[in-house]
């Protein structure tokens, strides 16, 4: 709980601290501020260097690689040779699903190549994202409303709800793999003989069920944090005015919890768009459960440069989604924090 909810309150003093510079100040304070700024730069330098090494360098390196051809085989020596510059071909090959043809040039990727799976993987990724985030939002909201009430054993419930979230995804996937086995408890319990990991719709729903089970608590807690910031007197005033429970939910709870809700949905959406471990372990990507991330990892074993292009495409897709959320749907971490700050004061 602390790690997930931590960043929201922690960032507040940091961003709240900066206005000091803009505040009214005396003439003598200028020097002090200048040296403070120097100090700040020095103190920040290690972080910036660390970020440059672990984020900027790999990103630039990957983008550079994505414009290189993958190594080809020299038919005479049987050894791999450098591919040379590729221009945009790595990108266009993915988007138009073109693969190398035996005699040179390209052909439409035959079924069985990774190249033929780009659009289906994109579709699968969005399908998983839309279905899981919708389910998680509804269930998470419901759980949050229950947890926001005062009742005996509330802290126990709050802690218990966190258990699925606390289990590492790989372990979750393995557990669900046992449940979804043909002779597993899933089929035993409902007396069915569904091939959960062996046919298309069950395989997709197996992934969705496991993912929803795991991440709904995360959603619930973020929404709960939003719910608790709504002052009780607003509800009392509404009650006095004769608003029904549904009206109170629609006119008070929803608008006031919206900033927190949007941030929660944004986080979950970005997370779901890069879904990897669950389908990889549950189905190995069979039966149309190959997500873009799985495709990247598979491609990584066949050629780095093409994989770099694919991961850049994945990034752009996710970035566009994030942009839409922030720009048009009002998922705004910063404003939400300001609101929270005012609420507290």
């Amino acid at each position, binding site marked *: 709980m602390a790690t997930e909810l931590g960043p929201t309150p922690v960032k507040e003093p940091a*961003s709240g601290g900066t206005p000091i510079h803009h505040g009214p100040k005396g003439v003598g304070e200028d020097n002090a501020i200048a040296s403070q700024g120097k100090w700040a730069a020095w103190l920040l330098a290690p972080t910036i260097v660390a*970020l440059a090494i*672990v*984020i900027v*360098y*790999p*990103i630039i*390196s*990957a983008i550079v*690689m994505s414009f290189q051809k*993958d190594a080809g*085989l020299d038919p005479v020596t*049987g*050894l*791999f040779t*450098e591919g040379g510059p590729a221009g945009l*071909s*790595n990108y266009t*090959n993915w988007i138009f699903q073109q693969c*190398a*043809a*035996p*005699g*040179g040039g390209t*052909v439409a990727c*035959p*079924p*069985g*190549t*990774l190249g033929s799976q780009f659009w289906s993987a994109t579709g699968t990724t969005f399908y998983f994202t839309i279905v899981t985030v919708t389910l998680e939002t509804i269930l998470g909201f419901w759980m949050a409303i229950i947890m926001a009430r005062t009742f005996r054993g509330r802290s126990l419930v709050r802690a218990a709800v966190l258990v699925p979230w606390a289990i590492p995804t790989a372990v979750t996937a393995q557990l669900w793999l046992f449940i979804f*086995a*043909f*002779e597993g408890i899933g089929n035993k319990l409902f007396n069915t*003989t569904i*091939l959960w990991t*062996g046919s298309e719709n069950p395989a997709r729903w197996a992934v969705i069920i496991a993912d929803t089970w795991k991440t709904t608590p995360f959603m619930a807690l973020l929404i709960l944090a939003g719910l608790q910031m709504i002052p009780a007197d607003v509800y009392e005033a509404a009650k006095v005015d004769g608003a029904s429970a549904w009206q109170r939910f629609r006119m008070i709870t929803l608008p006031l919890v919206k900033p927190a809700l949007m941030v929660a949905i944004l986080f979950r959406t*970005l997370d779901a768009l*890069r879904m990897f471990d669950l389908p990889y372990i549950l*189905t*190995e990507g*069979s*039966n149309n459960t190959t997500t873009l991330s799985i495709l990247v990892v*598979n491609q*990584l074993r*066949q*050629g*780095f440069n093409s*994989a*770099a292009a694919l*991961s*850049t495409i994945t*990034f752009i897709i*996710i*970035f566009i989604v*994030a*942009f839409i959320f*922030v720009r048009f749907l009002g998922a*705004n*971490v*910063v404003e939400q924090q300001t609101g929270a700050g005012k609420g507290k004061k």
Partner: protein
Amino acid sequence: MKTPKFLLPVAAAGVLALTLSACGGGGGGTTAGADAEQGLDGRGPITYVQGKDNNNVVRPVIEKWNAAHPNEKVTFKEQTDQADQQHDDLVQNFQAKNANYDVVSVDVVWTAEFAAKGWLQPLKDKMALDTSAMLKPTVDAASYKGTLYAVPKDSDGGMLYYRKDLVPTPPKTWDEMMSMCSIAKENNIGCFAGQYSKYEGLTVNTAEAINSTGGSVLDADGKPNLNTPEAKAGLGNLVTAYANGNIPKEGITFQEEQGRQAFQDGKLLFHRNWPYMYSLATTEGSSKVKDVLGLAALPGIDGPGASTLGGHSVGVSVYSKNKATAVDFLKFITTEETQRFYATQGSLAPVLSALYDDQELVAKLPYLPVLKTSIENAVPRPVTPFYPAVTKAIQENAYAAIKGEKTVDAALSDMQKSIESASAGQ
């Protein structure tokens, strides 16, 4: 500061880091190192890299070596027990030209890829080793373009497990086995299963089916050769058996463990699996087939079928500085004594032909004679530097064919085209 714009770079950096971080180790590329000639006479301490040592066989062998070679000590670098992770770890260290990965254990299917990338030292001239006492398929699997790049360390082959109580004499051919499926029906159990979930095991089973009917995935030049009547017959056998229920429908979800569980629970008449299953099926308390477990070679057209070869070889990195020590260590690993120790302590199938007829070993591992037939008839999985793409092409199309989503002809022709495209490079 408090505008939405503030978020964009942060979101961008965060998202990009998440999606791209996996590729950071790339770069480098491949060069057949010109400085690789170095270190052929070099002697000194070396490192041996291998996946998780589950049966504690590596450390005792190394201790013994170290006692005899105090100036050329071997250090053991243990990887995880996941084959994919071992592969990726080796690739990263080869790309970084890590001189500390002197001797590496490679899965039979990686040899060609590593050799073609120029990462493995060819074992010829000064580095030559005698492989005449070894089983030929294991040596073939460790060679690329006629040159030995690694020395076989342990082997593995598929075998047919059957129920002695229900089948008095095991089937020799596939058709014979299918005709015995009426016995399974009478007893209300499944007839036959291998591993048909979409993963590496499906490549193994598909290749076995195709090789057993005289077909082959790749021809001698490494070109795909799948539009043949033999290949059609092979894949057709699996497809027909799944369609008519001789392979139970849950077979499509089987990896090794699920199949073993089904057989041990008495739900299968015949089962194709690796030797590791033998001791588990005969000793595990929950096994219902302990006393009725029979073993035979895989069925073929008119005799034993062609198993797919498993196992590991050991190669020397071209970046190693102490190659003379490394090659001595390779010889040490393949001595009869070490091989016998691997077999008794780790249940690893030896690569030396003579050990399969050794009375003492057979008493301990009763499956050895059957396994010998299996490995002698084994065909290495397609030896190609494009193995990762080839295995995906096989899995994807065989899976669709077995499920009935594609005809056998279409599946094989798509397999053919996919492999051609992969080998054409980019």
